[in-house]
């Protein structure tokens, strides 16, 4: 006597807020365009090529991983495309195709795939890949050499190289406004500060990245740079310079905020960000490397699980 109508039977809750991994990826990709499009405008065809190859190859690597590990096809979540895009944003426009493809291999396969895919990667895949390719073929990523054949209407020396070699006075010619407008050489999507900031603010407001991380990362940069500058203004450039050069902005909004490798609790997010910012400046000012963002992010990725243990006790577990 039971009626034969087939109803859907599922589990509570029967409502969903409507978010999804794919819409998050889409939004971050969209925000990244604000920096990537001006970058492509500046570096032309070559930059477009690098971006396209990076995204396409990242997707193919992901498909391959799905296939080998016999998991459902996961390119639909947009994460592979996003990793490819973010990787491309850090590259000089002159990167040869094989380096791009190897880089996305490191990002998607080594950085993410072997850990079990999205959500399981302990490091930001794009940062990990970038660090590996930089260490492997350092000559390709020396921005001064790489972009030698371009004609710019501004000082075409990688600003961080200048400050490293010649101290603060050497970079006085870089006005903050010019830096923000992308009048500096660097990665395809890493130099147009206004775009990065607008994109970052958009992502923070919409909750696609955790604002606590971005803000504290920048605060860490600011405070540490200010400290160094205060101690020796001759040697160390001020916070304004450090905030808008190298990978600082892309780091704050697109790299440090990667979900899987960053904390989710409030205090840990602040510590994570501040630490990242401070380490960046430490490496830039007293380390041997030109830019510290990538190493700083790998280090905070590493401490993330420990930092994220600082959290409120669950209820019913005493105070």
């Amino acid at each position, binding site marked *: *006597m*039971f*009626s034969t*109508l*087939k*109803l*859907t*039977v*599922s*589990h*509570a*809750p*029967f*409502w*969903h*807020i*409507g*978010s*999804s*991994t794919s819409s*998050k990826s889409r939004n971050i990709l969209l925000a990244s365009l604000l920096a990537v499009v001006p970058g492509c405008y500046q570096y032309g065809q070559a930059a477009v090529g690098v971006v396209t190859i990076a995204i396409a190859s990242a997707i193919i690597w992901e498909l391959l991983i799905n296939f080998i590990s016999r998991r*459902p096809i*996961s390119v639909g*979540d947009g*994460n592979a495309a996003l990793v490819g895009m973010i990787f491309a944003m850090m590259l000089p426009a002159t990167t040869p195709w094989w380096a791009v493809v190897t880089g996305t291999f490191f990002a998607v396969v080594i950085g993410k795939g072997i850990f*079990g*895919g*999205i*959500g*399981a990667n302990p490091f930001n895949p794009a940062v990990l890949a970038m660090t590996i390719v930089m260490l492997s073929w350092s000559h390709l990523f020396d921005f001064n050499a790489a972009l030698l054949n371009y004609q710019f209407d501004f000082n075409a020396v990688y600003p961080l190289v200048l400050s490293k070699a010649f101290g603060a006075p050497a970079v006085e010619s870089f006005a903050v406004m010019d830096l923000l407008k992308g009048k500096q050489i660097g990665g395809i999507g890493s130099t147009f500060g206004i775009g990065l900031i607008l994109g970052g603010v958009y992502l*923070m*407001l*919409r*909750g*696609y990245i*955790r*604002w606590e991380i971005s803000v504290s990362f920048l605060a860490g940069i600011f405070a540490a740079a200010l400290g160094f500058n205060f101690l020796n203004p001759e040697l160390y450039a001020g916070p304004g310079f450090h905030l808008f050069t190298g990978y600082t902005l892309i780091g704050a909004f697109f790299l440090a905020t990667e*979900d*899987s490798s*960053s*904390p*989710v*609790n409030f205090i840990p997010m602040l510590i994570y960000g501040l630490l990242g910012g401070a380490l960046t400046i430490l490496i830039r000012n007293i380390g041997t490397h030109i830019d510290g963002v990538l190493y700083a992010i790998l280090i905070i990725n590493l401490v993330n699980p420990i930092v994220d243990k600082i*959290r*409120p*006790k*669950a*209820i*019913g*577990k005493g105070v």
Partner: protein
Amino acid sequence: MIKRSFFGLVKPKLHYERIDEAQAEPVSVKASKNIMLSIEHPFESAKNSLLKIGDPVKNGQKIALTEKADDYLLASKSGRISNISPFVGILGKKYTVVTIDIDADSAQTVDDHFKSSSQTPSLEKARDLLSGLPGKPDFTVFFNTDKPVKTIVVMGADNDLLSITRQYFVKNNIISMKTGIDFLRKITGIHNVILIVPQHLAQVAGSSGATVKTVDSEYPSAHPHLIRQHVLSTEASSPDAGVAFFSAEAVSALGAAFNTGKLPLEKLITFISKDGTRRLVSIPIGTPLQDILNEFNENLEEGDQLIVGGPLTGISVYTTDSPVMPDSDTLIVQSKEQVPERSDAPCVNCGDCVRVCPASIQVNLLVRYLEAQQYQEAADQYDLFSCIECGFCSYVCESRIPVFQHIRLAKYTLESMKEAEENNV
């Protein structure tokens, strides 16, 4: 359905429904042919039970499978037992369903057991006769000697979104609630009775004779665990303190029973149709849900969903013949298009669940263990049993993992394992 706001920076909020100033009176819906009483008792033990197919049943008669059983229901109509069958509910809980073909309205016979015993009320009698009332009052807590009850909390705030069932009783039946509260005080000897209501009902709640406390409208602040924590005095807030919770409907039913000498067995349900219209329905316990749908010409199609309980914690039933239970506060019809998509994607560690969890659980870590079915680990290290089962984490999960279902399943599995162990020694 409430969607993510454009600005996702702030924590998402869900609000309880608020009863209208001029809420229409409940529509009375009748049982058409039969009622079904679904008793939480395995069918196997029903073999030599008290009940036989063909037995006549009176209105208000206690329907229990064995003499001693705590689980029983009250027949809301008189008639004849036409079927006794097993039923397996969510998480494999075992029920026995007793179907009663009901007598015509004019031929209804009433069980006078209650009337005779209501002269000398006692806690034992209440436990043995009244827990089948609408709102499902639970008297067994008073018999737990480890945790003597010191406080009685009456919930005039609803337990899930969309429902206005409990609010209705505070707003319209506060007098019978007062009788019910006085009755509870008398049989338990506990004078500390607290009535929890949403802000807008604080004034009318005053005439209940109980101490009135309010909760805000943000889900899940009316959850019993959170009430204990935030509303009750520090003494009652510890998980070991004895607190007895009753719904406003249960208390009102107790009051009505003692005022009239007759057991009220009509359940009040907030019914939400597919188009979102909200109505109050008064219906005999055990009536198949189909009778409600017929009354309002609500046509279900293949793939639609029928939800008993609220949108966050309810249960979806697979047939419209499922009966109204004493604690079914809400009935929601959701069209196929509104059923949210779930996925088997892994957790991306977005942390949204952690930020909404009222129990401060690291759901992002917990879920990894649950998915790997490492339940013991989940309980020992990741606070599985701190979960108050509000469902918020699943609601926000970006990967659309059925986190809440994982949690329920894990708790149930561990609990049944523990039970099995205890039974073995």
